[in-house]
């Protein structure tokens, strides 16, 4: 299935480096242009452990609020399992870091992400990205406005692709992408054989790739 293939491509191309740093609080050293006396300017990206406290897991309420705002949904409409029950606040509350004491007797949230957490996160983010892409494709685009979602995706180097990627970075990570990051996400517009994928699929993939980075899921 094409989405799975491109999902794997996306993960290997962009998210894997971030995923390797998960929970370890990695920072990717970079050349930020600042002169430091006696210091060597780093140009390579070497993950390093956080010095003080590990990264905090972004739990259900903040995860839902951030994703909903980024993709122009209300939290109530972000995700409904079988169209009925809220994905985040009810069905997957515990794997997303919450707890409900009154009916379950669970008095504290899980201390760390559970074995099911990555699957649930993938599910919720992919659902949200897919819903937004399909709604935007149907008309009155709210997020994916850089180019029409009909037909093939533009070339990775096309300006409109950069605009879309930059917009997603701003919405999800509250910053601009580096050139390297932009190019990595843009490369998803082509499959392994170099052929263009559908524009709507590129939108979903780009959204999913950025929305499942360590940077979005932790703080």
């Amino acid at each position: 299935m094409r989405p799975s293939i491109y999902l794997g491509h996306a993960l290997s191309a962009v998210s894997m480096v971030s995923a390797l740093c998960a929970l370890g609080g990695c920072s990717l050293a970079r050349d930020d242009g600042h002169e430091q006396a006696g210091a060597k300017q780093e140009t390579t990206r070497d993950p390093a452990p956080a010095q003080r406290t590990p990264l905090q897991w972004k739990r259900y309420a903040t995860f839902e609020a951030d994703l909903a705002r980024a993709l122009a949904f209300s939290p109530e409409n972000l995700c409904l399992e079988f169209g009925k029950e809220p994905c985040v606040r009810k069905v997957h509350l515990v794997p997303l870091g919450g707890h409900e004491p009154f009916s379950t007797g669970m008095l504290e949230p899980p201390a760390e992400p559970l074995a099911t957490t990555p699957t649930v996160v993938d599910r919720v983010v992919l659902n949200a990205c897919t819903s937004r892409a399909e709604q935007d494709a149907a008309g009155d685009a709210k997020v994916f406005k850089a180019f029409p979602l009909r037909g093939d995706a533009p070339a990775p180097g096309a300006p409109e692709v950069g605009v879309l990627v930059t917009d997603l970075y701003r919405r999800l990570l509250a910053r601009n992408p580096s050139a390297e990051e932009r190019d990595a996400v843009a490369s998803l517009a082509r499959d392994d054989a170099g052929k263009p994928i559908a524009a709507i699929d590129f939108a979903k993939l780009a959204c999913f790739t950025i929305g499942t980075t360590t940077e979005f899921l932790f703080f």
Partner: protein
Amino acid sequence: MLAWRARSRRMRGGRPIALALCAGTLWSASTAEAKPTAPSVVCKTYPTIPDCAGRIASCTLCHDALAPASWNDFGADLKSVLAPGVAFDDALRAALAEIEGEDSDADGVTNIAELTAGSLPGDPQSTDRPRAAHPMDAGIAVTPRDAGPFPVSDLGDIDLPFAFRRVRALYCGESPSFEDMEAFEQVAISEQAGRRRLHEVLEGCLQSDYWLKTALPRLADKRIKPQGSIGPDTQIRLGPLRVVLGDYHFDYRLWRYVMSGDRDMRELLTADYHVLEAPDGTLSLSREVIPKVDPMALGGGQPLQPQYRAGMLTTQWFLGLNTMFSAMPRTTAAQAYRAYLGADISAGEGLRPVDGEPTDVDNKGVDAAGCAGCHSTLDPLAYAFMRYEGLPSTNYEAPAAPRGAGTGGGELGGFPVAAQLGGDGGVAIPGLGRDGGLPGGITIPSGGFNFFSIGVYNPSRPKQRIRAWDDGVQQPVVLGKPVETLLEWAQVAAASDEFKRNLAEMFFVHAFGQKPQGEQLNELNAIWRALPEDGYSANRLIHRLIDTPSFGAP
């Protein structure tokens, strides 16, 4: 060598009080039984170590398990050098000194270094290793942000935009947007202005619905322990009666009220009021007895008179859930100790044995060798709760009070009850079971009545429930201090370092997802020690928390 224990009695106000003159250790040919004075000895020997700041060391410092006892490497090393024939406390003090320079768990750090750093000298996985020197330790406090992950400063340096993200995510429930970040970074070009802005943002977050109605209440869950099936909204019925033990919404409102708005957190234990909430969300205080809303519910409202109230410790829900039918409210005392003073006796924490205890006044065998270690602390804690009802029980030893009109008291099927008994017929409940039920059945007047008075004050309860009870012998003690009433218990607890540290640690864990380690212990200690100066305000505490290096540095 035989151990001996002597008691003396002195009269105070006509009541004898037992005092133990001394206690020793029982040595047999093959075993040594240590009394739970060991944590106190550790803290007297090393009063400034993190494990003894605002609390007492846990038994897990030396033990893997307590019943039967087993020792970790540190405990085993101590045990091996304990001098025979010497009083335990003295022998332990000497043993601690003797093995200070050793490394019992072979993790590369000496025992004394581990104790000083706050890691466990018997656990090789518990080590505080100093931060490795970084070539850019000269560091940057704040720079304009560029693209890339963690773009501003190097690891370990204060990063105000990073702290801004954290504040928003933790206390507002939403990360900052791109526009928010840009605006903040412009301000944060000046570190002073950036910090000021950070605190303004925090202050706004602490008044948000997310903090007040979602995040803050969830911090109370393991203290209140709500259960929907026996809570105010339950639809489970015993005959026509809804099985409501109490209305825990009062508990959550009190928690939310005291822990916000710069109020004094000590009122968690000392408040003589309850908090009401109007439909528009406005909160108000009530110092009245609050009747229950549903006469066909077992519990509800707040029947305890204000002069006997001690905040979260005396809500109907807390007393009903934790005391329940028991004569001696040990579970209640243990939960109060755990929830508000941070000491879980079942985990060997907070053991401060009282000489001469446990007296085993209710003949449960708690003075057995395997039990006394904890019950010498727990039972004196529980004595102060004796005059507060949980749920009535058939286990009454004294004759029931005569049937009376109004709310004075009566008897139904063997249960003393505080009830308004009508004579106008109503719903009949047949006998509900063989043991502890209502063999004679009861008739509920058509207008309803207070079948149980859960959580009321009953000055006669100790003698009613425990035949051997003696106010002169069963002396309530909390944190080593004798007290006379639960209100005094609450005052002592609220003024203690343990109370301050426990709440500070709660907010620390909320912020960082783990308990403080290494140099963070110093940060934690500084935060809770500042509480008196901050009026015991939770909000002020959080403001100090976000100024710590741990909060602002990735």
